[in-house]
């Protein structure tokens, strides 16, 4: 009886093992997104607004998704956008790019093409010359993922 009980508990233990790494991996990814965000802003509060993110709602190919960002700013020496950072919730490396703007830009608008590892929300944060952080986001539905982590 005891041997059978031990056998079953061992069996249950074995069954639980494969689930663990997957859950750990997911937790790590979520963690790393938060930690990357915290590292960039140095823990400063990020307010929602002023940043507009433009992407196609449906992207056929995650390898190259057009993305444009504009920030509501007068772009003067006294009041301008210092930097714009693109973050992905599901890419293995959440930090996609940082753009440093100068007050001479005239217009706080940048555009590029990004890789997206599946459907997700893309977060863009901008730091203004007064040091404050603002954010905007966009939902993108990706039909063919960029498969960045080969999974």
């Amino acid at each position, binding site marked *: 009886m005891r041997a059978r009980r031990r056998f079953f508990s061992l069996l249950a233990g074995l069954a639980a093992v494969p689930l663990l790494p997957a859950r750990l991996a997911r937790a790590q990814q979520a963690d790393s997104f938060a930690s990357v965000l915290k590292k960039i802003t140095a823990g400063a509060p990020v307010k929602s607004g002023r940043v507009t993110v433009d992407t196609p709602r449906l992207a056929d190919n995650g390898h190259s998704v057009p993305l444009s960002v504009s920030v509501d700013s007068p772009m003067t020496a006294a009041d301008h956008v210092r930097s714009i950072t693109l973050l992905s919730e599901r890419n293995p490396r959440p930090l996609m790019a940082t753009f440093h703007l100068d007050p001479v830009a005239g*217009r706080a608008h940048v555009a590029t093409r990004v890789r997206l590892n599946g459907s997700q929300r893309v977060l863009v944060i901008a730091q203004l010359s007064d040091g404050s952080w603002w954010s905007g986001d966009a939902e993108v539905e990706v039909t063919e993922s960029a498969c960045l982590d080969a999974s």
Partner: protein
Amino acid sequence: MVARVHLPAAARRGEVIEVRITVQHPMETGFRFELGGKPIPKNVINSLLVRYNGAQIFRAELGSGIAANPYLQFHTVARQSGEIEVSWVDDNGERGSERAAITVV
């Protein structure tokens, strides 16, 4: 490495102009494998700098989340005739640059 800097050929002084840049580069993520199973090392353009007559007007730090043959578009104010020059460096330390002329009237 080949790149293109696209500018309006002429602009009025003080006008906000659009600068478009494309650089030919695989932007290798480091997550891909060769047919034999050997991982392909990460190699992306990690830093890109744009100067207008020598003064910096734009800087980008890129990662593997930027698509191959990176495309960047931003704005600047046309101040005087001259050149806009883009220069970059990748993870292997390879450098490149490209320039385009602008006439300000």
